[in-house]
């Protein structure tokens, strides 16, 4: 099979769709979508997306790889799961959008995307402490935009932060750490290794 992720000027070149079926969580159900639009109709933020979930799924089938992986649909989704529970064909729309987002991030399409920055900060906390330290994650996220922008965001949200501190809802001491942190890191590394192995072999995620 030709490189399934290569750019095709031909719409409906099924290489991309078939790759998504196999490699995106829930992707195998994507072929069953009947384009009824219940998902787009249910989406609380659908009108603010480049393409609603229904159209996005059709774009996957139409092989519009670039458009799919650069759309803001992947990042505007709030994971409210309305689409998933209402889909008459049982397509796990939320998971597919998340999976496409992960694919976009992996392939370097969304390096500067807010959510991807946040995810990087988040994962840093998880691998270092085993826990999410809310203030450190937030700080790291803000400053990923650069010092000036980070400071600006910090100041913007200062009032909220102070409020939280006053109410004892921000942990001020050293970050909570999981005792088995080394173990956790090893487990996560192993999982990543298995995942990479499977990707090479072309079998499905999860």
């Amino acid at each position, binding site marked *: 099979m030709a490189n399934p992720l290569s750019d095709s000027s031909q719409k409906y070149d099924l290489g991309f769709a078939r790759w998504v079926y196999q490699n995106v969580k829930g992707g195998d159900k994507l072929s069953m979508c009947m384009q009824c639009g219940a998902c787009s109709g249910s989406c609380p933020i659908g009108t603010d997306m480049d393409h609603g979930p229904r159209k996005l799924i059709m774009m996957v089938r139409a092989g519009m790889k670039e458009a799919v992986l650069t759309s803001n649909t992947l990042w505007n989704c*709030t994971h409210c799961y309305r689409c998933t529970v209402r889909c008459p064909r049982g397509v796990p729309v939320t998971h597919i959008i998340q999976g496409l987002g*992960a694919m976009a991030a992996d392939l370097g399409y969304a390096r500067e995307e*807010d959510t991807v920055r946040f995810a990087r900060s988040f994962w840093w906390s998880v691998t270092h402490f085993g826990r999410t330290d809310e203030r450190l994650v937030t700080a790291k996220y803000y400053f990923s935009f650069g010092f000036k922008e980070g400071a600006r965001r910090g100041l913007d949200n200062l009032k909220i932060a102070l409020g939280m501190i006053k109410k004892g809802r921000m942990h001020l001491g050293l970050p909570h750490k999981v005792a088995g942190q080394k173990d956790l890191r090893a487990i996560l590394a192993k999982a990543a290794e298995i995942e990479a192995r499977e990707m090479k072999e072309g079998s499905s995620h999860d």
Partner: protein
Amino acid sequence: MTEDGKDKGAKKKFVYYPGCSSQGSSKHLDESLRAIVPALGLEMEEIDDWNCCGASVGNIGGGALPATALSGRNLAKAEKQQATDVITGCAACYLNTHGANEKIKADIALRGKINESLAVADMSYEANLQVRHACEVLVNEVGMEKIKERVTHPLNGLKVAGYVGCQTVRPFANTDSGGNYDTFDDPEFLDQFAEACGAEAVDFDVKTSCCGGSVSVISPEKTLHLIKKILQAAQDSGADVISTPCPLCQTNVEMYQPAINKKFGTNFNIPVVFYSQLMAKAFGLDGKKDAGLHRNTIRSKKLDILVRNS
């Protein structure tokens, strides 16, 4: 003696997964849950050395299998603590942990991969646990009658808008594995909790409207209008407080009110409390230590009066 050798008079034990927000932004959820669950006759023991569940960005940050492995470690730990049920109060923690658990139970190949990962730390998960949301436990295990009985200080005259949100009920509340305890679009349990506590549940038809979830934390400019919708409905309904089960909803709906007022010219100042805080108060427990009411940034005068007079 019960069939599994337990003392019949003993309380049912749940292994408790607090989640990362319990350490900071949602301390009051943790505190009030720890107070009311034993008060209702159940035992809760924290998972030993639990780690983060991955929330909504674990997939992107670390990959799908590693994100699942986070829950794998929690479950492996929990399995060792002489209980069959895990309980959690956080919607996202529940989504991830319950979701991972169900997949691990159903998919042998996945279970193999998870255990292969856990093996590097000499751990394994045999898939013997059930993961349950605290609200489902209160509905199915405890029951409204028992909750009512426990109330000694009814919250008379308090008008409560029950804001359920998304991930608490979707996609599991209507499924067998999720306890089949309420519906996706018009859940009643939160209103029933309020009424059991002697309060009045107002008509609130945006009860499952999305607050924007993690997008509100990461890029609030995208979702402020969603939160405004919720606040507007609460204000229109004449509610004194908004009650909610979800840490993210509580924080989003509470802390963005000034920003929303600035952007939309509104004047919201509505207290947002956890249902467990109301219950703790109604059970006559301590307003600070147990109900954590001092942690809400927007105080409810009415609730404060009720607290004072108890």
